[in-house]
């Protein structure tokens, strides 16, 4: 009984962390069709911003939830103005440019922070469930990603800004004809996407040691999740994160962590074979 609860929490946590890792990319790649190979580095920067801010005496939750997204969002804004905006619609060029960017960010982070692993300890203590101890921070991550999904849904569905953004992504010319500036909308959306990546990196930072190359560990999972999710932004994100999270954790528990990782990739291959356009191209059609 205790064990099944622990397993349930771990599965929820795995799903939540996939949602978190992929949310920023879902906006930048899923909505804007910008293949951002520097996504992992945006997360890495979120982590470093948090650690630096905490080192300067800022409350850890403020650092994670406010400062990191804001600063990484601003960095994203600069990147968009200088690089990305010249490349909208040119897939291969954006890939090359963002890959180059990721190398630049890794280099800069190495110059500033050095190459040793750094980190902060988790701000929430662990607690006992019957005979088991579990990491209290897992619940925090679950809560953050639930709020994140709810927030994204509310903004995209409920607000005028969300409507305009979605409209401009589908028909930029039409949005322009109606008097909105697609250029501005793209800029704002990229800011939000980068901020979400920064938030993910910040929230995960206390759990994992951080090195300038940390971003590389997330990039594949983020792309797999977003691509398997398909065209619908939020439904796709949640449904594919849920499938992969469950698969990887069940196999981690039943066999070993190595097989858990392998199972995730095999599941992705099968899923994309069965639904080449992603889950939401077949199921949840027309959802957000």
């Amino acid at each position, binding site marked *: 009984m205790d064990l099944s609860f622990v397993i349930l929490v771990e599965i929820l946590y795995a799903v939540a962390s996939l949602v978190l890792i992929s949310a920023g990319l879902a906006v930048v790649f899923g909505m804007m069709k910008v293949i951002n190979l520097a996504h992992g580095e945006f997360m890495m920067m979120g982590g470093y911003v948090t650690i630096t801010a905490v080192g300067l005496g800022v409350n850890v939750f403020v650092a994670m939830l406010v400062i990191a997204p804001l600063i990484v969002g601003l960095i994203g804004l600069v990147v968009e103005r200088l690089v990305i905006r010249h490349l909208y619609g040119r897939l291969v060029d954006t890939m090359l440019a963002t890959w180059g960017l990721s190398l630049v960010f890794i280099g800069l982070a*190495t110059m500033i922070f050095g190459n*040793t692993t750094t980190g902060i300890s988790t701000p929430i203590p662990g607690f006992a469930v019957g005979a088991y101890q579990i990491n209290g921070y897992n619940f925090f991550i679950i809560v953050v990603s639930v709020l994140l999904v709810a927030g994204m849904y509310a903004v995209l569905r409920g607000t005028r800004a969300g409507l305009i953004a979605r409209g401009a992504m589908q028909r930029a010319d039409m949005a322009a004809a109606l008097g909105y500036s697609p250029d501005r909308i793209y800029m704002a959306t990229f800011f939000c996407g980068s901020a979400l990546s920064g938030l993910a990196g910040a929230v995960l930072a206390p759990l994992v*040691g951080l090195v300038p190359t940390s971003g590389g560990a997330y990039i594949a999972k983020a792309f797999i999740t977003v691509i398997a999710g398909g065209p619908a932004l939020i439904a796709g994100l949640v449904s594919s994160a849920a499938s992969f999270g469950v698969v990887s954790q069940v196999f981690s528990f039943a066999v070993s962590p190595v097989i858990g990782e392998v199972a995730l990739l095999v599941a992705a291959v099968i899923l994309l074979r069965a639904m080449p356009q992603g889950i939401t191209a077949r199921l949840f059609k027309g959802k957000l």
Partner: protein
Amino acid sequence: MSLNRRELLGGAAALTTAGLLPRVALAADTIRLGSILDQSGPFDAYGKPMAMATQLAVAEINEAGGLLGREVEVVEYDTQSDMALYSQYAQQLTRQDRVDVVHGGILSASREAIRQTMRKSGTLYFYNVLYEGGVCDRNIFINGVTPAQQVEALVPYAMKNSGKKVYILAADYNYGQITARWIEKFVRDNGGDVVGTDFFPLDVSDFGSTIAKVQTAAPDLVIAPLVGGPHLSFFRQWAAAGMKDKIALASTTLGVGNEHKVLTPEEGNGIMCAYNYSQELDTPENAAFKTRWAEMFDGDQSMHEIAVSHYHGLHTWAEGVRQADSIAHDAVVEALETGISITGPGGKVTVDPQTHHAILDVHLMEMRDQKMAVMETLPQRAPIDTQAVCDLGANPDDNTQYEIEI
């Protein structure tokens, strides 16, 4: 890197403009020591202090009058954590720079990339890093601790402090796999039980399900030969789950790159390990070493296990040259094979003639407030794993890395 390039360009320019003669004359005056280390990229936390150790040891050798009345000159390459560069620079060291000895290599892969080049060209090679054991080659001398040397000491100590049921969490590549087998053997030899073993790819950083699984098995002790940055998160998540005071932890790798200074005291305190070196070793040699290091590098104190092994290796080589009274390859090897020993910051280090590995002290330690407190010292441990398969006296032409049957 830019420095190296400038030196190379400078050298090339000198050769073409000033002609060959003066440089050859200069080369004959110094003993040339090739150094090949990752001073940038993911492994620089290991490589940078090793390069500093090279500088310090060579400065000490030169201050004491050099070797054979000649200065030692370092020819240094930064391999940038790139295996391809190892082969390239190894060729360069042997063919163009014509060095008398090469010290370097960090990962086992980098060692294997250089080893054959050195053997073929007859350049004496020193590899000075804690590794998985089993290399048997008369051209190489190895100064790092092997699994049996370390695990044989650590396992009984950790079991005495916790209990008989052990769970192993290891990195999923050759070091982790082999070390896990040694741990299993010594746990059984000490009357214990291995209740579970899990391997993790090097980029896994999420240990939640593992921590639950370990609790299901309810061991008394977890031994973790985990490697690298992502794996460091295990120790964080373990503490975050509140497990640290419930089940004891020991590791064969944590602290080698000064990881104990990264973990907070709450995360690190009480983790047991066993190495040849700790900054906290209370010996006159270590105190002097730390002072000299700080003087040379502006107050820096980043020396660690591997850097000190490297430092031992350099001095062992120098002692070999002194005793041989020659820099000729065979003479130095023969002198080293007489079982030369030096006393360094990690204690006495003796060359084992049978395997060309080191016989050295292993110190049992416990992490305390970001330091590695030395609890006990086991003097002069032999590399029994490699000795079981390798006898260079009987087979001087051997050239294999053995997988030791355990």
